[in-house]
Structure formats: structure tokens, C-alpha cells
């Protein structure tokens, strides 16, 4: 009895998972599975074992079964994946989610040692991409991918190629603009210093020389670096909206014109230094705001989740077709762990489908012959054959993407605070400027013009325009550090406005489904088969979980089968007698009072061990439930309501919990809440939540591995940071408050400057000092205040 206790526990040399010594070993090193051992053997054969010297256990667990890459022999698919090809070489870029440490980098850049047909490999660590140049006459793309898979770095190949899209995006030359602006700013400052300190009468020729140089340096700043502001201001005018870019463009234009005019007429030194500084700081603010997570994508849909190609049976032979060529009437073969890409009728085989990603139903479902199986399910078990009844884009699940939430342009997002304020700001600014002009005009037209331009220069909302980007950038990096990745800075403000939280159940508040079930026994291949065959006959949720855990097995014929409700199964297979069930049923002892439910296994009176099953809610669900005083909480699940009682303690009452919701119903539910005037935050993880995530004011995808698939959303939350959500919500409110404060500070600066400007006696030195001082104050204030707020919320 309890054979497992006598075995030594150790850790896998490759991936570091716990494993049993002696089960899989090679060169006196223990491995948890044949996958990890295989990787080690490939590496040691090619003398690449330094891989293990850079980091302890650099590999990732390889327990998933071997995948098939036959589809990569299809020329149509290959041509879509590669970047470039000619008669000799092919260049391809893969996205490899497993890249995580220096060992990965080292190994992937040494592929040449494994196969000399690979000429060149370069890893982009942050993007988790591998660029490979290889000789396609000696090595096919399929061979290359299989090689990568063999060493534990399976590339993620999907229909929605994120890499291509990223690379196709026009390169923003913001950095170049900043470089030019910075270069001019520095030189102009240098040339303006003599003016600040005063120059003697003998040095007048220098004054003009410096003046003309300043104009020369301002030209690229205005027409190259600053052109974005003019374009944006012009679009604002045409669309009849007032954006903060409008007064900025006005300020830049006025600064430039007045500088040129003053230098040409030799009436003054101009404001070239202020102008260059302004553009430089503004562009830096823009750069700070542009935080991108290269390894994350917020735009994924079902195409990222579905396979690239599928095997179909054509007469007697099997062939592979790209998903786009899959039509109704095709007969397709789906193997263990593969995803069914289109609605289809089951023709042959034992279907045990895991719909957890599509419907939220946690437990795999048995399907009988002739039943329609919806697309998106994952087959667990032996290969099945199905006939396609609907094309990929028209199936039950993918139809969701034809909804207006996806097709229509969405305009239910909030206006940001700065957008709302800048409207008033511009109106007031213009009123003051014209008032100053009209006041001086009758008496002294020259002074009137000076006052008018001075107001536009001094009130140019540089600090105002910078307060939001700098605060948001600081906030984003705080979130980022805590495993919460926002799509852009506007999301922070949306988050502060939320009053209703809708939670999905499976995968969102429960932990990943595989973790629920642990096997505390060592089973031989034959014993696994016996257990699988017995459990396949039972409709009990636990039996189905065990079946999906054991995966693809040949089903053996049963001689007899008795299922005792609440107890277990007693069955006979060949000469074996199986008993599977509760401790009381199998061994007659009471189960230990831990939280787990256990399923014990016994073959021919020999006790093998047990499966323990734990309905596991994510850590921190209590904290989230604690939010119910401030927010309305809803649970929205595609699952049956069999966990209702367990969850009741977390929610106000049963009416807050909604079960058996289809993807479309989820979307409609969120919309109904919004129509009632609520600002809804949706948290989900699967494709079935996609509609609701898109419709909501703030869609958060919860995932245990941020590199895995997550549906299109506004933010991605690492499952381990789930408990911090209340802190995130409070911190977002703090952030908005900080923005308000920094607006006030910059307004004070503006008023100070304005009181000088309206008199028409603005000196270049004054402008040159005021602008950087206000900017630096804002940057200091926002970054310090944000850090302080983060400390208070215990996020730092």
C-alpha cells in the first residue's frame, strides 16, 4: 500500500518540477517526464549542455503531448509564415512564449550546432521573438519547427500573426524628432546666454549673428519635430473639437513668428530658446506615454486560439488544409488536445470535449455520435472524426465577432480629463489674449500685439500637456511591476470611473483547471489505461476530470460495471477488478478532513494511490468580495450553477450570480448594465468572455501566463496579482487625483505668467525661465506623488 511514499522525491534537471527519482533518468540526472529527458538528450548529443550552467532548471515543463506540425508542409501556409525566401535561404520570425532566461537566449542562438542548415539566429528577448535564416534545401520549415519543439521551444503559430502586424506598423520617428529638437535646444540655449547676461555695444554684430543662427536652429524644430502638433491642430479644427494640441500648435506658431519678426526687425532677441525647449519637452512627454509591451497583445481574437490548419479525410487519404479552405461537408480528424475549428457533427470516435475556454464549463463533456459539437472545444482523448456543418467564420462562437461591439466603431469610452478641461482652457485663453489686444490697441498698437502674442506664448499649456503623460507613465510602470498590464494610459482613467464589476467564473476566479486535480500515485501505462477505461463509463464530473487528466488512451472493454452513487465505481476489465471512488468506498477508511475531495484507486485489491480534487478559488477572492461595499459585484458564468452555494458567501445575494450564460448573453448582460448608466468592468479569461470584455468600459483578461492566449481586452492581469485588484482600483483613483493636482499647479504657473504677459512686457529671459521651471515642477510632482500613492496602496 501507498507505494508512492517509498519513492524519492527530487526535482527535474530540465524544468525544476517535482518528480520521482529513477522514473526517467539519463546520465545520472532525473527528469519529470520523457519530454524533459528528450530535450536533455538532444542537447547533450550536440554538446550544448552549457544551457544548464547559466541557470538552474532553465527549461519549461514538457508534459504536454507531442504536437503535429504536418501542416507546415503545405506551401500556402508556409508562404504566409515566412518573411523572405529566395533560391537558397528562407528567413522566418517566430514568436516563442517560452523564452524567459539567458539560457534560452544562449541555446536559441546556437541552433547551428544542432543543425548546420541554420545559418543565423537572433533572439529579441523582450518581444520573445526568434529570427532565423536557414537553408530551405536542407531543412524544411516543418523540420525547423520540429527541431525547436524538440528542444522545448515550440513556436506559437496562429492565424492571427501578431509579429507580422507589429513589424508592419509604420515606425514612429518620435525618437528622431526628439533628437533633432534636443540638438537644436542645446545649441539655441548656448547662443542665447550672451543675451541673458547683456552684451556691450561693440558686440552688436554677434547679436545678429546669434539671432540668425537661432532662427536657423528653430526651423527644423518647428517644421520637423513640431509638425505633428500642427497636423493634429488642423484635424481638430476640421472635426470641430478642441484638443490640447490646438493651443500648443498656436503657441509654437506664435513663438516662431514673433522670434523671426523680432530678429529681422532687430527689435529684440526673440524666443527661440523657449520654442525649442517647449517642443523638446512636449515630445519627451509623448515618448513617456508611449509605453508598449512587446510581448503582449491586446488585440487577439479566436484566430489566435484556433489551429492554422486541420487534417481532413479525402476519400481514403488524409490531407491537411489551411483553415480558410475548410468547408462544410469536409470530414476532419481531431486528435488529443486539438481544437475543433468549426461547428461539426461527430461521426466516429469517443468525444470528450473540454469547452472551458468557450463556454466556461470547467468539466469536459461527453458527446455521442451524431451530435453537433461547437467550434472551440478541445478534444481530450483518442482521435475523432467530424463533419463540418458550418464554415469557421459562421460558427456558434465566432459569430460573436460579427456583433456590433466588434464591427462598429466604439465610442462609449470616456473622454479623458485633459480633453474635457482643454476645451475650456482654450476658450479662456483666447478671450484673455484678445482682451489684452483690444485693451492696448487704441493707445499703443505695437504693445497690443506684443501683449497678444505674449499671452499665447506664456499660456501655451506645456505643463498642462505634460501632467497627464508623466502621471500615467508613472502609474503604468507601477501596475506593470505588479503584474497588471494596461493597453494604454487612458485605461487608468477608465478604471477610476468604474462602479460595477462583473466577474467570469471558470479561469477567472477559479485557478487553472489542471491544477484542480493532482495524482498522488505512480501509475504504469497499463494502469492508466485501466483507470481511463473505467472512468469513461461514468458521467460523474470527477470521472470526466480524471479522463481528461489521463488524456488519450485506448479504451478497454469492460466485463462488468457498477456505479454506486456517492461512493464509486466497481468494474471488471479482463482479469482485473477495479475499484475507484471515495476512501470509504475503496479502502473503507474515512477521508482526511482536508479541503480536498479524493478519488482512490484500487486494482485487484492493490491500493495504487488517489487523485485529489480541489475546487480552488484564486487567492484574493475574499479581498475582491470585500469591494462589494463600494462596487456592485456580479458573477457571470457559462457554467452550471453547481458551485452556487460555495460562492454565495462572496456575493451579496444569489441574484448577483448568473449561470449558464452563452457568450452572446454575456455581452448583452454587460450592455444592459451600461444602459442603466453603470460603468462596467468585466473580468474574464476565455473566448466566451470576448464579447463582454469588448462591450464593457474596461475589459480585463485574467491569465496565469501573460504570454499565453488571452482575448482582446484593455488590460491583462497576471493571475498571481488577482488579490491586488482592490489596490489597483484605489490606486487608479489616486492617479486621477494627482492629475487634477498637477493641473492646478500648472494653472498657477500660467496665471503668474499671464499677469506679466497682459502688460505686453514679457522678456525672453522670463519666458525661458518660466517654461522649464513649470515643466520640471510638474514632472517632479507627478512622479513623487505617484510613488507615494503606490506606497500607500502597498504596490511598491
Amino acid at each position, binding site marked *: 500500500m501507498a507505494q508512492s511514499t517509498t519513492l524519492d522525491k527530487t526535482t527535474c534537471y530540465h524544468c525544476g518540477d517535482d518528480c520521482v527519482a529513477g522514473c526517467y533518468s539519463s546520465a545520472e540526472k532525473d527528469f519529470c517526464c520523457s519530454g524533459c529527458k528528450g530535450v536533455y538528450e538532444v542537447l547533450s548529443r550536440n*554538446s550544448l*549542455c*552549457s544551457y544548464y*550552467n*547559466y541557470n538552474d532548471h532553465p527549461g519549461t515543463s514538457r508534459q504536454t503531448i507531442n504536437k503535429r506540425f504536418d501542416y507546415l508542409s503545405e506551401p500556402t501556409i508556409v508562404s504566409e509564415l515566412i518573411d523572405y525566401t529566395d533560391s537558397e535561404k528562407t528567413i522566418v520570425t517566430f514568436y516563442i512564449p517560452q523564452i524567459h532566461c*539567458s539560457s534560452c*537566449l*544562449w541555446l536559441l*542562438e546556437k541552433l547551428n550546432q544542432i543543425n548546420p542548415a541554420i545559418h543565423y539566429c*537572433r*533572439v*529579441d*528577448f*523582450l*518581444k520573445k521573438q526568434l529570427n532565423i535564416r536557414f537553408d530551405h534545401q536542407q531543412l524544411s520549415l516543418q523540420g525547423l519547427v520540429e527541431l525547436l519543439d524538440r528542444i522545448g521551444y515550440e513556436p506559437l503559430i496562429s492565424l492571427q500573426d501578431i509579429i507580422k502586424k507589429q513589424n508592419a506598423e509604420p515606425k514612429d520617428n518620435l*525618437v*528622431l524628432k526628439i*533628437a*533633432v529638437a534636443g*540638438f537644436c535646444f*542645446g*545649441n539655441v540655449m548656448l*547662443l542665447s546666454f550672451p543675451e541673458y547676461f547683456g552684451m556691450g555695444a561693440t*558686440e552688436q554684430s*554677434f547679436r545678429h*549673428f546669434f539671432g540668425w*543662427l537661432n532662427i536657423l536652429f528653430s526651423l527644423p524644430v518647428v517644421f520637423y519635430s513640431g509638425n505633428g502638433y500642427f497636423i493634429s491642430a488642423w484635424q481638430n479644427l476640421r472635426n470641430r473639437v478642441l484638443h490640447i494640441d490646438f493651443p500648443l500648435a498656436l503657441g509654437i506658431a506664435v513663438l516662431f513668428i514673433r522670434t523671426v519678426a523680432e530678429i529681422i526687425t532687430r527689435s529684440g532677441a526673440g524666443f527661440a530658446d523657449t520654442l525649442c525647449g517647449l517642443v523638446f519637452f512636449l515630445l519627451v512627454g509623448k515618448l513617456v506615454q508611449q509605453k508598449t509591451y512587446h510581448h503582449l497583445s491586446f488585440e487577439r481574437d479566436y484566430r489566435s486560439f484556433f489551429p492554422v490548419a486541420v487534417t481532413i479525410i479525402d476519400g481514403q487519404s488524409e490531407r491537411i488544409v489551411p483553415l480558410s479552405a475548410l468547408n462544410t461537408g469536409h470530414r476532419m480528424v481531431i486528435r488529443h488536445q486539438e481544437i475543433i475549428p468549426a461547428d461539426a457533427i461527430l461521426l466516429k470516435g469517443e468525444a470528450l470535449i473540454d469547452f472551458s475556454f468557450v463556454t466556461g464549463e470547467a468539466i469536459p463533456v461527453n458527446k455521442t455520435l451524431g451530435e453537433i459539437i461547437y467550434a472551440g472545444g478541445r478534444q481530450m482523448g483518442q482521435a475523432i472524426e467530424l463533419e463540418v456543418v458550418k464554415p469557421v467564420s459562421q460558427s456558434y462562437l465566432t459569430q460573436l465577432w460579427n456583433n456590433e461591439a466588434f464591427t462598429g466603431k466604439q465610442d462609449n469610452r470616456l473622454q479623458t480629463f485633459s480633453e474635457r478641461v482643454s476645451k475650456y482652457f482654450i476658450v479662456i485663453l483666447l478671450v484673455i489674449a484678445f482682451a489684452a489686444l483690444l485693451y492696448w490697441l487704441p493707445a499703443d498698437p505695437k504693445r497690443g500685439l506684443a501683449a497678444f502674442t505674449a499671452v499665447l506664448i506664456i499660456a501655451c499649456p506645456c505643463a498642462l500637456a505634460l501632467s497627464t503623460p508623466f502621471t500615467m507613465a508613472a502609474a503604468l510602470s507601477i501596475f506593470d511591476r505588479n503584474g497588471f498590464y494596461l493597453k494604454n494610459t487612458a485605461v487608468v482613467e477608465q478604471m477610476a470611473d468604474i462602479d460595477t464589476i462583473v466577474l467570469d467564473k471558470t479561469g477567472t476566479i477559479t485557478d487553472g483547471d489542471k491544477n484542480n486535480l493532482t495524482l498522488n500515485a505512480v501509475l504504469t501505462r497499463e494502469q492508466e489505461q485501466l483507470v481511463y477505461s473505467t472512468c469513461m463509463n461514468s458521467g460523474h464530473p470527477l470521472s470526466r476530470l480524471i479522463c481528461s487528466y489521463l488524456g488519450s488512451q485506448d479504451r478497454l472493454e469492460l466485463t462488468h460495471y457498477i456505479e454506486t452513487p456517492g461512493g464509486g465505481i466497481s468494474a471488471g476489465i479482463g482479469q482485473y477488478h477495479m475499484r475507484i471512488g471515495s476512501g470509504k468506498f475503496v479502502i473503507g477508511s474515512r477521508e482526511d478532513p482536508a479541503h480536498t475531495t479524493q478519488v482512490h484507486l484500487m486494482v485487484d485489491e492493490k491500493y495504487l494511490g488517489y487523485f485529489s480534487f480541489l475546487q480552488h478559488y484564486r487567492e484574493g477572492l475574499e479581498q475582491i468580495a470585500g469591494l462589494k461595499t463600494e462596487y456592485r459585484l456580479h458573477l457571470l458564468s457559462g457554467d452550471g450553477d453547481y458551485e452556487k452555494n460555495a460562492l454565495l458567501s462572496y456575493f451579496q445575494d444569489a441574484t448577483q450570480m448568473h449561470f449558464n450564460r452563452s457568450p452572446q448573453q454575456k455581452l448583452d448582460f454587460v450592455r444592459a448594465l451600461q444602459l442603466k448608466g453603470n460603468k462596467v468592468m468585466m473580468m474574464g479569461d476565455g473566448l466566451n468572455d470576448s464579447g463582454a470584455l469588448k462591450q464593457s468600459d474596461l475589459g480585463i483578461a485574467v491569465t496565469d501566463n501573460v504570454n499565453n492566449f488571452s482575448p482582446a481586452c484593455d488590460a491583462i492581469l497576471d493571475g498571481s496579482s488577482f488579490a491586488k485588484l482592490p489596490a489597483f482600483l484605489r490606486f487608479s483613483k489616486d492617479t486621477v487625483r494627482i492629475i487634477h493636482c498637477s493641473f492646478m499647479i500648472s494653472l498657477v504657473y500660467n496665471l503668474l505668467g499671464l499677469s506679466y504677459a497682459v502688460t505686453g512686457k514679457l522678456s525672453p529671459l522670463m519666458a525661458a525661465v518660466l517654461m522649464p521651471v513649470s515643466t520640471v515642477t510638474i514632472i517632479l510632482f507627478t512622479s513623487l506623488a505617484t510613488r507615494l500613492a503606490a506606497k500607500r496602496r502597498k504596490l511598491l
Partner: protein
Amino acid sequence: MNILYLLIGCSIVLALAFLTAFIWAQKSGQHDDLHTPAIRMLLDEELEEEEER
């Protein structure tokens, strides 16, 4: 004092040279991936030599 014209001219030419160098570096993609080279330079062939010894 007329030497200032030459000096300022020189300084601007020098600064322009640096700006051009930066623009060239940016355009040729040297700043595209700032993270990987930092790791790559820590990986060397020494580990293999140690094994051989």
C-alpha cells in the same frame, strides 16, 4: 573676438556630426532591441572550456 565665428562654426559642425551619427544609428535599427545585447554579452564560450578541462 572674430575668432568666435570660427569657433562657433566648428562647434556646430561637430554637434551636427554627432546628430548625424545618432540618426544613422537609429535608422539602421541599433536601438530596436536594447535588452537582448545586454544579456548576450554575458554569455561567453568560457563555460564550455571549463567543461573540457
